[in-house]
């Protein structure tokens, strides 16, 4: 069997990187992790991702793949054990639809809420709450005592891996940004899903202490607000 060389360029506090790590661990793929420094990006990062110059970057036998969702689909298609996406084309389309929804309406919106304030932040937070309502509806329809995850009978799936970052990051961003979108009363099914997700054996050891993340994201927020003030 050919020796696979799998390398992941990442940042310890990036939810996009963490997703890729979860996908690799889910498949039982051995990989080398390389911590990047945003203030001093490695030449490997810059040549692997010349267009965006961002992490995560997966290098498979020297070939770079970038963008977390693209990487996860690549992992799923290249290593066939423990499928992440369903087999049926219509089920795959639904999984991709929800992954896109999460990215556009929740992930991107949380990023904006982190680095804005006042009216601008209020607008995004309102949209976030609406998006969480929609996601709660989907969770209520899909999940129950027998089906704990969006991946269904197979346990974890694509949507779980794409959404999972909220378990470790949303509370942090809420605290730093000074707003609230998570509400156990309004989103009981999402909260139940979160409680189950963090207990999954491959997920649990990857979760980071809140305090460490708060310090990091406070710096991110201050840096962005500082830049905005100068404009």
């Amino acid at each position, binding site marked *: 069997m050919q020796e696979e060389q799998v390398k992941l360029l990442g940042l310890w506090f990036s939810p996009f990187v963490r997703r890729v790590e979860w996908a690799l661990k889910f498949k039982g793929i051995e990989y080398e992790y390389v911590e990047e420094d945003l203030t001093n990006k490695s030449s490997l990062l810059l040549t692997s991702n010349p*267009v965006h110059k961002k992490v995560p970057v997966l290098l*498979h036998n020297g*070939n770079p*793949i*970038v*963008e977390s969702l*693209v*990487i996860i*689909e*690549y992992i799923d*298609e*290249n290593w066939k054990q423990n499928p992440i996406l369903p087999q049926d*084309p*219509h089920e*795959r*389309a639904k999984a*991709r*639809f929800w992954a*896109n*929804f999460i990215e556009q309406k929740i992930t991107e919106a949380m990023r904006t809420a982190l680095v804005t304030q006042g009216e601008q932040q209020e607008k995004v937070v309102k949209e976030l709450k609406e998006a969480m309502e*929609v996601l709660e509806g989907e969770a209520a329809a899909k999940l129950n005592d027998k089906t704990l995850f969006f991946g269904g009978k197979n346990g974890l799936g694509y949507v779980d891996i794409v959404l999972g970052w909220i378990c470790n990051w949303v509370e942090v961003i809420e605290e730093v940004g000074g707003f609230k979108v998570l509400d156990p009363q309004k989103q009981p099914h999402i909260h139940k899903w979160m409680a189950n997700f963090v207990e999954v054996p491959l997920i649990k050891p990857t979760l980071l202490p809140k305090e460490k993340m708060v310090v990091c994201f406070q710096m991110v927020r201050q840096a962005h607000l500082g830049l905005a003030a100068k404009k």
Partner: protein
Amino acid sequence: MAAISLQTATMAEEVKLFGTWASPFSRRIEVALKLKGVQFEYIEENLSNKSPALLEYNPVHKKIPVLVHNGKPVAESLVILEYIDETWKHNPILPTDPYEKAIARFWAKYIDDKLWPAATKVLVSKGEEQKGVTEEIQEQLKTLESELKGKKFFGGESLGFVDIAANIIVFLLVAQEALGLMEILTEEQFPVLHEWYQRLVDDAVFKECVPPRERHLGFFKVRFGSSTASK
């Protein structure tokens, strides 16, 4: 499993596409269905008076395009393209190799995440802001062009996923002409991309799936006419 596939292949396929004549996202789906020779019923939606069917098939976004295959809906244009490719396997739109597929997905995403927002912005901005966005688009086209070198299409010998996604460029050029804006895709600045563009619009299938020119020019004049800057 084989018996079921055979049954599905010979059973009358009911394929419906909900779209609008001026939407590049809707037109992408037409290209894919025609490339595969899939018979479909087209339903023109009125976006200011959306049909109950559309609202039922895409309750989350209430947007077109939506593909309905034997009663099951699929939404989001790139998700629909992947669904079409996985369901009707002849004349593939995406490469079979996982790495090549990842590259195709990266560029389609680039077009939707970067080029599309810039293209819509350039039509509504004025003066210095418009100049800035135009330069942004030129940078993006340069980046796309570097991916194309040596190939007839992004998909290789024939139209593929990225070429279909790049139909946005056609719409941008028509809009620029309608509004008297500076021509962006000149042969001098983008010799390779310009040649690709000619091949794209001359392609037998692709050219059936662009809005009728005069009507399209008129559409942009009415929609964006009052906010244009002069050459």
